[in-house]
Every structure is written in C-alpha cells, then in structure tokens.
C-alpha cells in the first residue's frame, strides 16, 4: 500500500452540477402557446423579464419561440411588460 494514500471515511462531494436540459426537447413540446400564462411564467423573472438560456437551459430554437410567445402575451396584456413581484 502506498504511503501517501489518504483515505476518507466519507466520500468527498464532487461538486458536480446536474446537467441542464431543454425541456421542450425532452418532453417533445412542439408548440408554445402564448395564451398559457402559467407556463410562460417559468421563463420570466419577478420583474417580468425573460430569463436567459444560461439559466433555463432551453435550446436556441425553443428560446426563440418562448420569447415570441412571451412578447405576444405582453401585447395582449396577459403578461406585464414591467412589474415587481410577479410571482
């Protein structure tokens, strides 16, 4: 046995983050409805601004569709343009 081999009682937590995924690809969602406000709220922050892909993990294709849907919902006054404490 090597001399400088260190043994731990509990395994060290490897700081491995869970891999992000695109929920549209994973669940096979093809169309994003602008009327479904509760669903769109997943992709905006408390001020009503769109969350970046970096956080939601959406693929570019669906991020574009999400942004279109949110903008349509804003036009039809289903979602606010700016606000505080949306959620």
């Amino acid at each position, binding site marked *: 046995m090597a001399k400088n081999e260190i043994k731990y009682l509990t395994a060290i937590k490897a700081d491995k983050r869970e891999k992000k995924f695109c929920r549209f690809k994973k*669940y096979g969602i093809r*169309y994003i*409805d602008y009327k479904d406000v509760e*669903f769109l709220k997943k992709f905006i922050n408390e001020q009503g601004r769109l969350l970046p892909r970096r956080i939601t993990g959406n693929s570019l294709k669906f991020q574009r569709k999400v942004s279109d849907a949110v903008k349509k919902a*804003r036009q039809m006054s289903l979602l*606010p343009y700016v606000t505080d404490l949306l959620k």
Partner: protein
Amino acid sequence: MNNYELMVIFTPVLSDDEFKSQQKKYAKMVTDTGGSVVAENAWGLKSLAYSIQKKTTGLYWVLEYTAASDFNEKLKIQLLRDESVLRHLCTKLDKYAVEYNARKRSGVKSGNQKAVEA
C-alpha cells in the same frame, strides 16, 4: 387556405348581448369570405396586466379559423375601425399549433403539463 387564430380584447362596457353580436359579426366575416370557423372561445371578463385606454379589464375572445391569405388584411381594417376593440392579435398557426389546439379542446392534457413541473 391557412390556419389562423385571432384574439380580440373588447371594451368591458359591452353588455352580454353586444359582446355576443360582436363575436357573431367577426365569425360571420370569416365564413362569408369562404373561410371556416374551427373553434371559438369567449374567455369573458378578465383583468388586464396593464391598463389599455384607461381600462383595467377587458372581454377576451379567441377564434380559431381557416381563411385565405388575403383575408386578414380586410379583417384588420374592420378591427381597427371598431371602437369597441381595445386590441387584437392574429397569429398564423403551424401544424404543431393546430395539433396542440385540437388536443387542448378535446380535454387531453397537453404535453406542457410535464414541463411545468420540471
């Protein structure tokens, strides 16, 4: 012929009958020009996320229809002329959207349900 979806916000001052007659008027416009109404859904009175023309509520109405591609221009003129319309939005539906709407109408849970939880 293409599939479209129209959403209109009427002023909340309309009475029930007026609201109905307005719906009928625009649905008739679709059928008169050779299109057909696929589905109609009146959401009724809903509060707006921000005020439009000093109004905080509106009567929502959604119409799904098929029409020729030059029809929407005519419809738009009528909608913009109409004093009782606060706002309207016309969307072209692709095949996935048509499928989604049909599924939603038949009451089957849309695939979005899973993603909402995720």
